[in-house]
């Protein structure tokens, strides 16, 4: 305390060493800087184990999916080190059959849904960012309030049925197409755009639509990319809406197929598999292959998601 008041110019650490014995200063600096060896080792071990708990299952799943049939059967259904690469399982599920169809459904839902969600979200967010326009406050309040409650499972189901969406692919898109939270995030980006740019465009004769299209969207591309990825991941992962709204197994997305044949362990016979199978691979291999196919798209977009996190795009947006 006294040292800092006497030496206001120096840093606290420096002032401490100036006034006290070297041993004292050393002890203090050690406390400030580094952890002891025991602490450091424990921490490293815990973090390594944590990472292994995530990575090892993936390695096992990929390894089993590409292992030759006899190795999988002999080792009781799980392989960590495949003897050679054998892609029979992938060929059999991707050459027509249940999985191929579900894969197409999932890709379609994800592509159409993401584009639609992103467009509608950006448009609504832009409208809400234009303060002083008609009904701006009430609309903003409606969006905000929707974050605080959910209408409940039964009423939502009945509404979807009332709109005639049962067994329609649209039931997997429309009910979840707009997330109030995402609208608020994008809106806060639009609000933070400098007024000068928008006013300048207006002075140059740009219409509201042109300002939105030519200035608002290009300047918020990073935020929109993250939001789009989030929507995409959600559509790809959607399982519960399919369970609720899709009774026709021919229209199932991949997650439903995953549940039926991997989680519940239903057998895949020749009618469920593709046509180009010589000898059906073991069920375990097929299950792992389906699992890999459903994880890979997430792994592909993951680096993009991450890049934006490290830029702090999302944390900044959430704060504002």
């Amino acid at each position, binding site marked *: 305390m006294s040292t800092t008041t006497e030496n206001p110019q120096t840093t606290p650490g420096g002032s*401490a060493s100036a006034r006290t014995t070297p041993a004292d200063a050393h002890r203090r600096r050690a*406390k400030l800087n580094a952890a002891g060896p025991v602490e450091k080792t424990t921490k490293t071990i815990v*973090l390594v184990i944590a990472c292994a708990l995530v990575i090892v299952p993936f390695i096992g799943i990929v390894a089993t999916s590409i292992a030759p049939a006899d190795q999988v059967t002999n080792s009781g259904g799980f392989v960590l080190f495949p003897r050679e690469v054998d892609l029979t399982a992938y060929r059999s599920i991707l050459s027509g059959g249940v999985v191929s169809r579900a894969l197409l459904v999932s890709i379609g839902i994800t592509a159409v849904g993401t584009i639609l969600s992103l467009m509608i979200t950006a448009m609504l967010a832009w409208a809400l960012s234009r303060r002083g326009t008609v009904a701006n406050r009430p609309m903003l309040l409606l969006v905000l309030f929707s974050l605080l409650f959910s209408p409940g*499972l039964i009423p939502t189901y009945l509404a979807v049925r009332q709109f005639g969406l049962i067994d329609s692919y649209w039931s997997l898109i429309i009910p979840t197409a707009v997330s109030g939270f995402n609208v608020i995030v994008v809106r806060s980006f639009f609000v933070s755009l400098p007024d000068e740019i928008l006013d300048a465009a207006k002075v140059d004769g740009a219409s509201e639509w042109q300002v939105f299209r030519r200035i608002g969207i290009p300047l918020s591309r990073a935020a929109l990319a993250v939001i789009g990825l989030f929507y995409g991941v959600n559509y790809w992962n959607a399982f519960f809406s399919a369970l609720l709204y899709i009774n026709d197994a021919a229209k199932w997305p991949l997650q439903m197929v995953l549940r039926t044949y991997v*989680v519940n362990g239903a057998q895949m016979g020749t009618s469920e598999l593709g046509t180009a199978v010589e000898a059906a691979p073991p069920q375990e291999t097929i299950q792992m292959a389906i699992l890999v196919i459903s994880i890979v798209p997430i792994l592909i977009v993951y680096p993009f998601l991450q890049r934006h996190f490290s830029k702090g795009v999302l944390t900044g947006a959430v704060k504002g």
Partner: protein
Amino acid sequence: MMAVTDMKSPSTAASPPLARRPRPSLLRRILRDRTVLLLALPGMLLLIGFQYFPLLGNVIAFQDFQPFLGTDESLWNGLDNFRILVTGDPAFLNALRNTLILTLIQSVMIFPVPIVLALMVNSLMSEKLRQGVMSVLYLPHFLSWVIVVAVFQQMLGGSGMVNNLLRSNGLPTFDVIGNADLFKVLLTSQVIWKDTGWAAILFIAVLAGIDRSLYEAAAVDGASRFQQTLNVTLPGLRPIVILLFILQLGNSLSVGFEQIILQQQAVGIDASEVLDTYVFNEGIAGGQWGTAAAVGLVKSVIGLVLVLTANKIAHSMGEEGVYRA
């Protein structure tokens, strides 16, 4: 005052008003803002159609609802559907008990894990290492519950990796998947596996924002590393912890719906039924629409009340909370 009245007097009406322009009529403003309104239209329609319109559907909680009759034709039965909440119906009580146990486990065991992880990762010296560890650990957040459950089965199931290794080494195998006694342990470990890394991101961001000079000052005052954590780090985390706790409180009656539905077959209703699955099984699968909607409605209302109350309490303790009303 005089000047204003003068301006409004007939003698000056001929000259255009300088100070105040009259507020344009509603129609004029709608025409002026038509682009903005059109942009808002699709999103607002979806929000009203799938967030607000279904709210009205909650009236079936007060009806003997028959799907083929619809809400207009079904008979009203007052509070009959809510009777199940107080009559001690065993299926409902079982769901309630499981929900409360899981809520307790989640707030006591799951909530602190990301904070501990954040503290550990935050004290890593190298930025590269820190990012590497985190990008591995938050990956599972983006996987669907179906995938997570499948991965757990492949790892811990009867023929899964762990039991396979144990068996080939002549060790006794263990049975977690499909074991009703350990179901809550399984659920908890799945949640930790999936979401710890993700939840830690927020804490790490907050930790990075704590002023370094506070640590230096504490060290100068002779605080040990543990004391620094106790007196600098944890107070720094307090606002975000309180915020997340309030938000979680609002969801405290909704525990792992998808996660449980997926695994319910294997362990049976007794061990796995929670309020959300009860609403689903009773209503959509079982046709007891009115009762299910009543339970769902009470659940949502309690959730909303919990959030609002917790927020109030946080304010009265001088915290930011979720929002200021």
